[in-house]
């Protein structure tokens, strides 16, 4: 597991870096049901309480993108895609 969301707190690495074209894989575990929003790519993932979820994206847009819990706008991590 790469990032945990427990008791309202985010624990884990805060930046994940990839080169353009690579496959992003970040595993997330939360103690509540949440919707995860990958900005820029505008992708939404639903994470169920206690069920690990893989944020899987092809890194095709360069930049630094926030990945948030949509309901509270809590930052989970940042996705860095280098050109």
């Amino acid at each position: 597991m790469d990032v945990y969301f427990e008791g309202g707190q985010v624990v884990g690495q805060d930046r994940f870096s990839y080169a353009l074209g690579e496959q992003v894989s970040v595993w997330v575990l939360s103690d509540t049901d949440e919707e995860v929003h990958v900005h820029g790519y505008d992708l939404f993932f639903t994470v169920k309480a206690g069920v690990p979820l893989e944020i899987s994206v092809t890194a095709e847009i360069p930049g630094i993108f926030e990945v948030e819990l949509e309901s509270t706008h809590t930052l989970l991590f940042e996705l860095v895609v280098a050109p």
Partner: protein
Amino acid sequence: MIRRLGVASLIAVGFVVGFPAIALAHGIGGRLDLPVPVTYFIVGAGVVLVISFVALAVLWPEPRLQDGPRHEPARFSAPRRGMIPAVGLVGLLLVVGQLVPPLLGLDTDRTRPGIAPVLVWVVFWLVIPFGGVVVGNWYTEVNPWRTLGRALRVGQGERLWLVDRWGIWPAGLLLLAFTWLELVSPGSGSAVTLGAAALVYTLLMIGSMAYAGRDSGLAVFDAFTPYNRLISSISPLGRRGDGRIVWRGWLRALTVIPEWKGLAAMVVIAIGTVSYDGAAVTPWFRSAFGGLMATVPGQTLLLVSTVLVIGLAYWVASVAAARMVGDEWTARRVAGRFAHTLVPIALAYAVAHYLTLILFEGQQLIAAVSDPFALGWDLFGTAERRIDFFITASEPIWYVQVAVIVTGHVLGVVLAHDRALADFGREAVRSQYAMLLLMVALTTLGLLILSA
């Protein structure tokens, strides 16, 4: 003083305890710029240093900009009056109108942002001031509150003394509040928050105009009236009293900006808030202030502190300059006389920082006009349009960012040189060392933030 500080810190602590962890708020979007490669930084900073020292030796020996704008009529005329004010008013209505769907209990599509964030954070906050550098101060015409005041016939008698007494301090503090809404407030991307803020601001402006008159009220209390005037004073285009567009020469309008109280504060706020936003996403800032960054009051404290640090730097430079030129000059007077020289630097900071926001998030306007209230409409068939992140690659953006920062620095040095000649004479060029040092520091900081 001590007691006041104590109360303030108690309140601050209360806030810190009371707020949950939040994401890095930003007015719009969730994309940050990739850092400029360190080679660009080294080249940019090197150029700045060389230019600065060469400038001292070769710039003109007599003041050239101080007589203010020329007034040569331009060949073209302005768009018909009435068009632009209408556009401004429609924009304001679209933002305040965001309050209507929730009041009617309508369901909004939460995957669509609506038109308010892009109107406020891209069009109003960036495109209008930056465009003013090219076309002159069009904000006075597009200003929806002025149009509203005219329509409602509020603000007949002008209280001109208000500008002398308070200067633009109220406007400066409102500008700080506006950047707080953009950079710190968790609701900055929410249509309802923006609608409510716009409504409150509108009431505030109507009250100000009713109390002080349309011109004086907006000059003192509307954050964006002095801000746009400052930025657009760089423009070679201006408007004469009779409405005719005139060529006035680059930078010339800046040298005749009235020395309102709070002028330096407004420029410092403009530079400081952008610095905070740029620095806040750098790894070193986060590792140093990570705890504070996690809460709204912590971020507020950091935002205000950054502004104060920039203000302190300007004050120190003013004190040093005043010491070098003799007894009749106080630091306060120097600070007022040189405030306009920081305007190009403030503009450069903003342009470099917000360039990609305009290019990328600005595209949301195309989708948002089809569904301005996020009700699932598709008025023009563009509602599903997504942002195209490939309209430009990273390298051209890096070039432009570094070039803009360096250009802002050069213009600042030129303005400061000209003002020093006018105020202190040829012998007092020494006074420039302090301002030059400040400008080199600010420019290097700007480049450092871009490349961190």
